């Protein structure tokens, strides 16, 4: 396989890891071995950009008299190459011989003066009050300095320049200028400004061959005003038209002499495999671009350019070259083409540290995907690019896909498809993949949802229905065991039992083998059933996925918990809307019982109340039962019959029978035989016992017998106290109902106000559930203090705390 090293040779400094990205003007006369101080070396790595060409043309115009203007401002943002340009011009004018060859190589036809006076000043080196002092000194005219009164006059400057060519180079002027105190040093500012004005005047004089080169960020308004008075030439070095060529020239030796045949072979290998979904608008042009930018993929250069252009502090072309230099060093002997995925993400820490950290955090989550890390890195780079904000599928594939190295596009696409939902901070907006600082709960849940089985969902729906909708007062059929005992039970059916025959079949199955058949309140859904509802099952799936995520994800904003609470609330509403109907049994044609469905609202108390029978109906059945029973009917048997046989009216508790018996007794429609055969004909027993027997009044013994029997006092028995009419009171029936009030607020005062408003003075309270959802997380000390100050009251206390614990590792 052809590699980059077979086609193009990186500069030695790159391979040695000594790439000098920063060019500093104050190092021009340094004794160290540096690019800045070596004309030959500097010119050899310098590409003649259009901007540099334009400067040289202007120099030529000034020196040939075609133009008056000799002041040239090199403008552009940080890292755009202003200083590099300035030093290049300095060396060209200072070393005319070396310059001549270099200009010839670049086919630039201008004649430079043979021995001009030059001086270069960087304010990084000269912290002076008057900038003319180092300039004049470097031009060997210290003698003028004592003659200067407030500032150098035009005559004095002209005297220094004389009739020869003189070139003055000034770098980093704004930092120096900005360091003056505008109030206290106004005089210094003004004197220096006047110097510049005079200097620029002389540079604009057709009779003087003064060239003044100045790098300028255009940030200082005062200087801008002074410079603009003589309208100096402005050359923007940041214009990007040559950017790629500059980069290639700076990083590779003989960048213009690449082996085109080999490049063609490599590029062809890529282009042939670039198929859908990789989107290339004009394959022919794209191939040309790939050849031009080789060994960089065009998308890499375009994206990096946009990333580094976006903000001045990103160091523009200098920052970009630093990144590329490292990339070349690591890959030139391993790869055939440099792609975005070959970049070192650490280079971007200065651009958005937090986002790079998010990427690093997510790396381990994609470790099982062969291309996971490369895909994530590509998305990170595209996210850092303000122009793209994220990567399309095609962007990612172009950034990672390396067909000549045996990669298959399909495998890459599969990884891209599977990656979403694994990293915590990877988002997708429309067609764009991107990183964000916030957790992508949606994606994580979507992924997690796939792990949730239908069985688990059903169990969860059953749990929510039982706990949140029916207050734990029902038994869920099919999910928990249904006892066969004398207690009243509410049985909740989660799926529709259909109508007519289907309903009957299901009911038959339910009642099969059960003895206490009339103790079940069967609650059916009025719709197709909650387990068949797509909305309910999907929402439950989300809840389960979210709950699974809780332990795995660092969710400082408690987004997941909020989502679970919200979804749970919605599920509860949906379930409530699905209920309900209860089954009532109607006797038809003697023994035949048919089920009748009664609509009920989804409220457990209302359902219970609706299931109960009318007291008069209960009374009628009791009368029916004792009508032909000369021996009477024992209460225990009567109650058991009511609970065992569905032909009887449904009773919610034994009290329904007792109450009916008391009323019937009061109306003289039955009589009661109590303990030891005591008859209650007109008198009502204090309480009714299961052992008592009730009779139709026609089977009651005559009154006299009762009195006699009643008079008999057996041995060992106590004489019953005589009771007055007033003392014979009906047994007390509890006439109160249990209520639950939900209270909400952010202070005890609000809760108190609710209790005050919504309860009555005679209400008795048996318990209170209080849940504190703290607005901020409490420390252990704080929670202990909180619990200590809870009120002391006799009774059981139950509690549950919710806490976050850091992993041991």
């Amino acid at each position, binding site marked *: 396989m052809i590699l980059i090293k077979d086609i193009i040779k990186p500069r030695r400094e790159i391979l040695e890891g000594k790439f000098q990205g920063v060019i500093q003007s104050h190092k021009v006369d340094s004794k160290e071995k540096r690019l800045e101080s070596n004309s030959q070396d500097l010119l050899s790595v310098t590409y003649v950009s259009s901007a540099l060409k334009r400067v040289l043309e202007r120099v030529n115009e000034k020196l040939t008299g075609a133009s008056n203007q000799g002041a040239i401002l090199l403008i552009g943002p940080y890292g755009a190459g202003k200083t590099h340009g300035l030093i290049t011009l300095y060396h060209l004018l200072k070393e005319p011989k070396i310059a001549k060859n270099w200009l010839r190589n670049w086919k630039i036809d201008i004649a430079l003066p043979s021995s001009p006076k030059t001086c270069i000043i960087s304010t990084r080196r000269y912290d002076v009050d008057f900038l003319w002092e180092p300039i004049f000194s470097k031009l060997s005219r210290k003698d003028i300095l004592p003659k200067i009164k407030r500032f150098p006059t035009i005559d004095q400057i002209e005297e220094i320049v004389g009739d020869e060519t003189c070139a003055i180079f000034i770098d980093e002027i704004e930092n120096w200028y900005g360091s003056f105190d505008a109030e206290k040093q106004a005089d210094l500012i003004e004197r220096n400004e006047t110097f510049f004005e005079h200097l620029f005047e002389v540079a604009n004089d057709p009779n003087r061959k003064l060239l003044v080169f100045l790098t300028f960020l255009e940030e200082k308004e005062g200087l801008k005003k002074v410079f603009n008075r003589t309208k100096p030439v402005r050359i923007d070095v940041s214009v990007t038209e040559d950017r790629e060529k500059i980069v290639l020239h700076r990083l590779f030796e003989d960048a213009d002499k690449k082996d085109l045949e080999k490049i063609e072979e490599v590029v062809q290998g890529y282009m042939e495999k670039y198929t859908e979904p990789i989107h290339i608008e004009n394959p022919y042009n794209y191939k040309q671009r790939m050849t031009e930018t080789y060994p960089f993929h065009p998308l890499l250069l375009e994206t990096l350019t946009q990333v580094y252009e976006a903000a001045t502090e990103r160091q523009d072309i200098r920052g970009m070259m630093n990144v590329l230099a490292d990339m070349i060093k690591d890959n030139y002997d391993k790869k055939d083409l440099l792609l975005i995925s070959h970049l070192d993400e650490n280079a971007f820490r200065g651009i958005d540290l937090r986002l790079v950290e998010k990427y690093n955090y997510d790396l381990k989550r994609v470790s099982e995907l062969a291309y996971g890390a490369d895909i994530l890195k590509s998305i990170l780079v595209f996210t850092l690019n303000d122009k793209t904000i994220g990567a399309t599928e095609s962007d990612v594939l172009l950034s990672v896909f390396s067909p000549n190295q045996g990669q298959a596009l399909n495998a890459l696409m599969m990884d891209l498809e599977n990656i979403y939902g694994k990293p915590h901070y990877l988002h997708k907006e429309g067609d764009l993949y991107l990183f964000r600082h916030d957790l992508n709960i949606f994606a994580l849940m979507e992924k997690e949802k796939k792990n949730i089985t239908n069985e688990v969902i059903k169990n969860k729906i059953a749990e929510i229905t039982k706990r949140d909708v029916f207050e734990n007062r029902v038994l869920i059929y099919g999910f928990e065991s249904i006892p066969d005992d004398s207690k009243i039970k509410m049985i909740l059916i989660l799926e529709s039992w259909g109508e007519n025959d289907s309903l009957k079949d299901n009911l038959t199955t339910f009642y099969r083998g059960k003895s206490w058949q009339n103790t079940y309140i069967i609650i059916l859904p009025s719709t197709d059933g909650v387990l068949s509802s797509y909305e309910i099952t999907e929402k439950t799936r989300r809840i389960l996925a979210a709950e699974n995520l809780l332990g795995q994800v660092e969710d400082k904003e408690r987004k997941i918990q909020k989502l679970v609470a919200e979804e749970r609330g919605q599920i509860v509403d949906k379930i409530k809307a699905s209920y309900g109907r209860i089954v009532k049994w109607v006797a038809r044609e003697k023994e035949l019982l048919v089920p009748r469905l009664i609509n009920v*609202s989804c409220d457990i108390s*209302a359902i219970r109340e609706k299931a109960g029978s009318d007291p008069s109906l209960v009374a009628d059945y009791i009368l029916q039962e004792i009508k032909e029973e000369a021996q009477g009917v024992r209460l225990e048997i009567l109650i058991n019959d009511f609970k065992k046989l569905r032909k009887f009216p449904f009773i919610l508790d034994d009290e329904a029978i007792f109450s009916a018996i008391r009323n019937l007794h009061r109306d003289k429609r039955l009589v009661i035989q109590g303990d030891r055969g005591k008859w209650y004909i007109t008198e009502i027993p204090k309480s009714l016992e299961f052992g008592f027997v009730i009779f139709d009044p026609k089977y009651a013994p005559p009154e006299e017998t009762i009195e006699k029997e009643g008079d008999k006092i057996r041995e060992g028995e106590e004489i019953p106290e005589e009771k007055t009419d007033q003392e014979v009171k009906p047994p007390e029936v509890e006439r109160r109902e249990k209520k639950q009030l939900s209270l909400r607020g952010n202070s005890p005062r609000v809760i108190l106000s609710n209790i005050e408003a919504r309860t009555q003075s005679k209400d008795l309270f048996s318990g209170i559930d209080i849940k504190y959802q703290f607005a901020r997380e409490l420390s252990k000390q704080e929670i202990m203090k909180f619990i200590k100050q809870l009120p002391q009251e006799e009774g059981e206390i139950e509690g549950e705390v919710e806490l976050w614990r850091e992993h041991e590792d």
Partner: protein
Amino acid sequence: MKIENTFIKSVLREANPIPHIWQHLCDIWHKHVTEDLKDYYYHGEEEAFLFEDFLLKAYDEFFSKELPRACLNTPSPFQSASHDSCFVVMDGMSIREGILICEALKKEGFTPRMRCSFSAIPSDTQSFREKMKSDVANSSLPAASFTTRIGKFAEINNPKKIMISGKEKCIWSHFPDVMLDKIQVGHTVISDLENMYRTSEQIVFELVRKAHAKKIIILSDHGYIRFESGFSFSLPEASRKKLRETFASSRFTTMNTTDLSELVGDGYITEFSGYYLVKSRYVWPVPGKYSIYLHGGISLMECLTPLIEVEK
């Protein structure tokens, strides 16, 4: 204003003072029912103002306990709905309009009966709707099939185009409330109370005529108090500032957001069921445009609302 001893005695004697206060308030407005509309609204308000002033000074608990409790705990009239009745909610209709409508119906040959009903807490439309839904949902009365339809109101938005089939069981008229809202300080007056009443009366008559139900129950979600001078109580500057800062142009706020114990102590507001409610006719101006007919607080004219039953 003279308050009869008999009235004071009955209020003190009875466990529930509301029927007596309701009756007294109705009597005040009845006295002026024969006057022309403008005078009716003016004289009636004058007297009702004095009565409320007396009640606030003499029986503060009525505003801080009795009235809010009745509003919160009295079951909604919808709970006792029967199959042959139709409910018409006139949004914002107060006792003032209730008395007039009752009289107008009598003149048309109906025998309407008016009784006391209540707003919710706070006395606004949203709270009324919530209370109505919750009351109906908790109702065990055999009106279940009817109540399932509660909440689906036919709405009257345009008094000139009342589109109902006649079979509706619940009708919600956005009048008179929408017209009251348009009468604002700093606004061109595009409506007035007389105009508002006439529109409301026209709506009621048309609904009574069109509805098929045997019994039509006309009720209201809340009444209103008037901001104009002479009909409202003034406040000390400091309290006014504090109220303006906290309530702005509203008459209630939740207790969750702020602690106003000081204003409660001063007697201008009361805390109840998680809300701070402005008592009686205490009002304060706010910058910009605002309605001069207010509701949301706890006063006789906001919270005691008319319920008129008309048999066809």
